[in-house]
């Protein structure tokens, strides 16, 4: 009987061990400092199959591994338009996320990208972007990519792509468009590793320019 109990216990432990290992590190809620909404209410009457459902409610808690940090703060930013029409590229990682004048960078019309250099390859757990949130608008062809190559020629992982007709030539995206709101849009990189984060956009529903208030990249440095 004792032998039988011992065998069952060993077998049980042996079976559960891989499961335990697969759960990974413990998680905690990602704490974000959000700006004030700039327009009253979210336009819930806007509907399209290619548009994320507008609930008018705030995003729920997002869980990240314990020890996840903001890696993008004050990190250098590059862009396909090195001379913004309004603002400076550094404003994209300065921590200021308000929607008013003086908080956003305006870059050239058409397909443009901005790229944040995290300084070292890290496991990424959350990427947030605020394009422009003082007006209900949709930014076109939003693509988020991660790579260890600063030129994004190799080892590129696309974690979000709503370019549903391949306007940008980076492949047809299956993700949906979304309306800009004060809490920003959260992209889940699912722990993928990379040093550079690049975001593409291609104008918006109000004008053909591209804007960024802030980009935040959360992750855990790789040791």
């Amino acid at each position, binding site marked *: 009987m004792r032998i039988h109990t011992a065998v069952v216990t060993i077998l049980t432990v042996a079976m559960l061990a891989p499961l335990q290992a697969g759960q990974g590190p413990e998680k905690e809620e990602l704490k974000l400092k959000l700006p004030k909404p700039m327009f009253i209410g979210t336009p819930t009457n806007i509907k399209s199959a290619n*548009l994320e459902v507008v609930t008018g409610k705030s995003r729920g808690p997002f869980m990240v591994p314990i020890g996840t940090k903001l890696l993008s703060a004050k990190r250098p930013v590059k862009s396909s338009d090195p001379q913004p029409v309004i603002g400076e590229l550094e404003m994209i990682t300065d921590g200021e996320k308000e929607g008013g004048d003086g908080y956003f960078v305006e870059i050239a019309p058409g397909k443009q990208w901005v790229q944040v250099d995290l300084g070292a390859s890290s496991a990424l757990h959350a990427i947030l972007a605020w394009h422009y949130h003082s007006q209900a608008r949709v930014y*076109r062809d939003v693509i988020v990519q991660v790579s260890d190559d600063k030129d994004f020629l190799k080892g590129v992982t696309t974690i979000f792509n709503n370019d549903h007709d391949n306007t940008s030539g980076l492949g*047809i995206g299956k993700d949906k468009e979304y309306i800009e709101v004060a809490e920003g849009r959260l992209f889940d990189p699912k722990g993928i590793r990379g040093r550079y984060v690049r975001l593409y956009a291609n104008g918006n529903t*109000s004008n053909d320019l591209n804007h960024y208030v802030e980009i935040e990249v959360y992750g855990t440095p790789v040791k």
Partner: protein
Amino acid sequence: MMGAGLMTRSRGMFKPPYAGHDAVSRIRFAALVGVALVLALGLRVVGLDHRPMHHDEANQAVKFGVLLETGEYTYDRTDHHGPTLYYLTLPVALLRGQATLASLDARTVRLVPALFGVGLLLLFLSLTSRLGRLAVAAAVLLAAVSPALVYYSRFYIQESIFAFLAVACLVALGRYGERPTLAAAVTAGVCVGLAYATKETTVIVVPAAVAAVAVARHLPSGPGGHRMAARMMDSRTWPPARHLAAGGAAALAIAWLFFSSFGSHPDGFVDSIRAFGLFFDRGTGTGSHSQPWYHYLGLLVWSSSGGVVWTEAAILVLAIAGLVSACRATGSYWQRVVALYAVFATLAFSLVSYKTPWNLLPFYAGVVLLAGIGAQALVTPWGQTNRWGQIPRRPMIQKPWALTPSAGQRRALTPWLVGAVLVAVCAHLGWQSWQASLRDGADPRNPYAYLHTSPDLLRLVQRVTDLAALHGDHDRMLVRVVAGPYEQWPLPWYLRRMTRVGYWPRAAEAGPFDGTPVLIASQENVPALEAALGDRYISEMYGLRPEVFLTVFIERGLWERYLATRR
């Protein structure tokens, strides 16, 4: 009888009032005007098709298309202004070889207001002998680069033509006040008739111009030739009855011709009068276009939105200097005519609660002319004119490089300083005009882009065009637009080359949808269409105007074929 006496007395006494000819030589004047005309033309005609069509532009362009194709026009008193815009577009379209709505393009229709925008400068030039070369040179330069005047000169609406005709009325009435002849009365009548056939707000600008001329004639004029003229004209007399009759007849005849579509719709003119009930309700109501009295001035002084700042305050400051100059004892008749018109018209338009930004043009054209007078006044400060009101021919330049200039030297430096400031002001205004017209033409941060069509709509148009190219019916591909009138425009313009596009305000009236490859819907109609179309269609969303969206439904098979071309 009194009028006849006035005629007799005024005959042969006319001498253009002198006002600062010597401040700028003929050659410099010609050079400045040449620069202004080149700037005006360049800023008004380059890239005319760059900005998407505003819904008001599109509506007028389609209405013109009907006139172009059928030769017919019927005045619509419920939602349109006068017909001159359409008739004046005819020669431009024919010269460009465009005889149908489908063949028309934005450049053709927008060229008409653009040319009248340049024409405004030529009207200013007609006052050179009355206001002085410097005042007119400054005014044409400011008009050439003023963002408001430039932006709406590129807009296919009545306003640019109307501003031109408002100033034409002022000049014609001012000349009649100066020398009341029958020909001058008829000329003024023609201008008033054309203005009325352009826009109903003639009932504001013409009384403002008449009042300006009447008051200016009653005021004692300053030194110079006009003092003599003013003394010889009996300002207490009314215009002779035959002048009033001839002028009124000319105005009525012109207005009747246009509103009646040159006789084919006789009721048009009466309808134009009946329309004033609607205009009065709109002008005094509290609708979405209702704004406080200071709206126009605030818009011109300072407008800041989304990190972009716009200002034409320099023109207003110069206009105030012009007003002060005109009010002084040395002010001439014509300076006062311009100043009083600018004040009366600005006040009148400001007091009307219905305000759209382009409505500022008729009074702002007068303000810009007054700013030219102000620039001249700043260059020729008080006491620098001689007893005939003339500026000394040779400036008293002694040692401009001296560290401590004498009073004479300071006076001599004044024109150069004011000139340098004017150049800087014009450069800034020109840069704003370029931004307003080309870079931010449809941007909601541009204060002149009022409820403007978003460039995103051009993507929708491109999508429909691309789909039609793939569809077997090509330009005959059926498209159903299910949206209220406010959300339909400017689609009829952009889809003008497609022959089977239908418009319905509500989904319930637009069906059945079977066999319709593409549908375009306003947001309130989307749920009904989604329910009716199911998963046989994919949908996309496009911006029509800021925070106004359209959804396009595309039959899934057609979409897949389209997508195959994009991989």
